């Protein structure tokens, strides 16, 4: 007979911690967090820069401080957790199998599961950069861990490909540690990172950001010795004659994050090919009954504050699920997107049983100036908010109010789009 736990949370990063606290607050005591690393807090532990918590705590914290606040609350609430513990399987019956040193291999029967596994970085191989495979090529997050947790310097002369937030943060971090960051090359004509990071991490240190550029050559067979970048055309193909060569011992890659959903797929939950995360309803429940998802495993966020907010909702809903307060299914409406909106989370909304307010988060496909974010209930435009700039690096949101459906009880589709 397997051990039973009411809510099993996979991952003890910001999403898992906030979900656990919310589940506890909503009346569930039988919770277990399973964390694969040797500390709680997830990737925040290596994010020693500030800028976290402005929304959640109304003050600016470092990553470890932000994580620390949640860890303290989890400890205070005496929510059980296991470290160095890897979940290797979840089946359709919500049997969660994990391994660690102390317990060996164990299977527990969960009533509800909250997926909070986070994401991984896109590796070099997925970027199709030709050349040798020498030492000195790191994803930005790996370099960040080596520097900030292990205390190792990864290089002295650095080229960064990709302007995701971790890459921008690492440009500043390596500069502060005495390395020379020669350039940040970005394949796209816009950055995938936050504007504030471009200003505070590149501009303030005189590090050039070259948009529409990519790495076309890596020199050095044993260790990186030089990097060649080139400008790309509209089809992202390098333009001959635009090559620039940099002497460098390190290439950092910050070219996108991929939600880690191998376990999710195992449960049989449907996936969204745009986010690489599971499809969820407004309760953040996947289409596997009683399995919820939040944080970067659901879709990659720009700010951890939004992760915490989303995870709080997932935790509360999981608690309602196991306590039988989830209510029966009401009128479910699809949320679709087009014209510059790449995806939405959630993808469906139960307009009968929804909370008073539901936040729908999304990202746009390109940099847009002076566009409006519009919401349609079927063919009728119900809201339009003018935005000076929209960028793929920044997550956007609209709030759908329950009362707004009073006038549209028969709505069949909610559509979110941008309009000029």
């Amino acid at each position: 007979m397997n051990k039973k736990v009411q809510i099993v949370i996979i991952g003890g990063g910001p999403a898992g911690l906030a979900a656990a606290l919310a589940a506890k607050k909503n009346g569930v005591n039988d919770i277990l967090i399973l964390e694969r690393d040797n500390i709680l807090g997830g990737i925040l532990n290596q994010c020693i820069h500030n800028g976290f918590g402005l929304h959640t705590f109304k003050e600016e914290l470092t990553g470890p401080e932000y994580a620390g606040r949640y860890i303290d609350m989890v400890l205070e609430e005496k929510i059980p957790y296991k470290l160095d513990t890897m979940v290797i399987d979840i089946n359709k019956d919500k049997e969660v199998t994990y391994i660690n040193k102390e317990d060996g291999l164990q299977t527990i029967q969960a009533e509800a599961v909250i997926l909070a596994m986070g994401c991984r970085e896109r590796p070099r191989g997925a970027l199709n950069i030709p050349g040798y495979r020498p030492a000195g090529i790191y994803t930005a997050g790996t370099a960040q861990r080596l520097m900030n947790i292990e205390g190792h310097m990864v290089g002295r002369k650095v080229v960064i490909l990709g302007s995701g937030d971790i890459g921008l943060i690492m440009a500043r971090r390596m500069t502060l540690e005495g390395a020379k960051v020669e350039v940040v090359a970005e394949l796209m004509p816009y950055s995938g990172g936050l504007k504030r990071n471009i200003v505070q991490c590149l501009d303030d240190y005189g590090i050039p950001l070259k948009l529409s550029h990519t790495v076309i050559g890596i020199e050095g067979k044993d260790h990186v010795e030089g990097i060649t970048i080139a400008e790309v055309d509209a089809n992202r193909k390098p333009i001959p004659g635009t090559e620039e060569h940099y002497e460098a011992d390190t290439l950092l890659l910050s070219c996108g994050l991929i939600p880690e959903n191998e376990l999710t797929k195992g449960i049989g939950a449907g996936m969204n090919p745009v986010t690489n995360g599971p499809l969820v309803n407004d309760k953040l429940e996947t289409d596997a009954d009683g399995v919820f998802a939040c944080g970067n495993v659901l879709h990659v966020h720009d700010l951890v504050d939004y992760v915490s907010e989303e995870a709080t909702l997932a935790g509360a809903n999981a608690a309602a699920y196991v306590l039988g307060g989830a209510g029966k299914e009401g009128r479910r409406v699809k949320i679709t997107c087009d014209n510059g909106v790449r995806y939405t989370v959630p993808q469906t909304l139960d307009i009968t049983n929804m909370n008073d307010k539901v936040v729908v988060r999304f990202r746009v496909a390109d940099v847009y100036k002076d566009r409006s974010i519009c919401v349609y209930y079927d063919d009728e435009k119900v809201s339009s908010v003018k935005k000076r700039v929209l960028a793929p690096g920044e997550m956007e949101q609209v709030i759908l109010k329950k009362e707004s459906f009073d006038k549209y009880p028969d709505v069949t589709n909610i559509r979110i789009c941008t309009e000029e």
Partner: protein
Amino acid sequence: MSIMDQDVVIIGAGVVGAAIAREISRYDLKVCVIEKEEDVCSGTSKANSAIVHAGFDAKPGSVKAKYNLEGNLMMGQLSKDLDFEFKQNGSMVLCFDEADRPALDELYQRGLDNGVQGLEIITGDEARKIEPNISDEVVAAMIARTGGIVCPFGLTIALAENAADNGVSFKFNTEVQNIVKIDGGYKVATNNEEITTKYIVNAAGVYADVIHNMVSSQKIHITPRKGDYMLMDKEVGGLVSHTIFQLPGKYGKGILVTPTVHGNLLAGPTAVDVDDKECTATTAEELADVSMKANKSVKNVPFRQTITSFSGLRAHEDGDDFIIGECSDAEGFFDAAGIESPGLTSAPAIGAELAKEIAEKAGAQEKSDWNGYRKGIPHVSQLSFEERAELIKQNPAYGTIICRCEEISEGEIVDAINRTLGAKSMDGIKRRTRAGMGRCQAGFCTPRTIEILARELGIKPDEVCKNRPGSELIVGD
């Protein structure tokens, strides 16, 4: 005759050198393998198609045809004796044009002439029934049931470990600089030491011509023929179950698409002759060529799911065949040269043959205590839940996962470092355990693997290398 340091020096610790070492370890001979890299399986053996060829491709009567068939027949038992991954998944050769049917028939006939069993020609529709994802343009295909796939690292490392366990010594970071004929043998000068030996085996891969030409006036010439590959995520490893070849035709020798024994999908190789025997850099043109040609065989190969690309060099000799045996003008010097495809398949047979020849010449006796079995590192993630629970009970280190993607535990990594011919580098660990070979390509496990390597080897983290000296991962604290 003065006393020699060694009876046999084998130059090169790739799959051929390792196979010869393992076979020759049966005899009461003092044998040493010297390798210029820091580990076994560091050249061509680590970057190839990982195919156990059925044997229909080689010209009947050629050296390649002989060893291919023999090697193919040995592989199943060897994989059991030495505990490495091998699967007889079968090969399928696709024909896209009725006009090429005679060429397919000719290939079939060549296979029969070579003694290959299990060949059959089928229609395009029959082929699509077996492999639903192959191209609609396929008009006919040949099935070769004895074709297989193997872990090239597993095979090479297993052979080398078994050789070492049976008394063969290995010297790494040791590069041959010169070979001089001396009375009763040879003196091999390396960057580290001079070694005298009665016999030499030349298994130097793309450098086999350089080594051969040090002792023989009958010069050989090897062209490194580069091939680029793309390896895709395990999620799409089931796209095809057979190894899918293209009938050699107007597109050249073609690109194969195959599952690997680990469940990934592999496409490649290109064939570009290069001058540099170290040139293993992929190029954008060749990678584009791989995807273009692979898509001819299989519909919509999911190259977006590529997790890594790599390049390997085949040792192509001008005579277009293996050169196996004692050199006619250098007594006691044995070649295993020009080993390109089907070299991986042929290696066990080449090893058996050369070991026998050398033992006979040396008048050596078989050892009574020779042990032809070797047990590999446990593949913990592949065990049943019950077996896994039991193993973690015995050694809790098997319960701490270091590489998430491939689910490789600390116990397996420590095993890889501390066993016979243990890993000394990140790549050494990768090839022995698969840690770092998954979809994140060592993003998460690199910091912890560095830590474990430093701890187990008693070195500083900044001394940990990716592979050879000069490939240190971090520059300091």
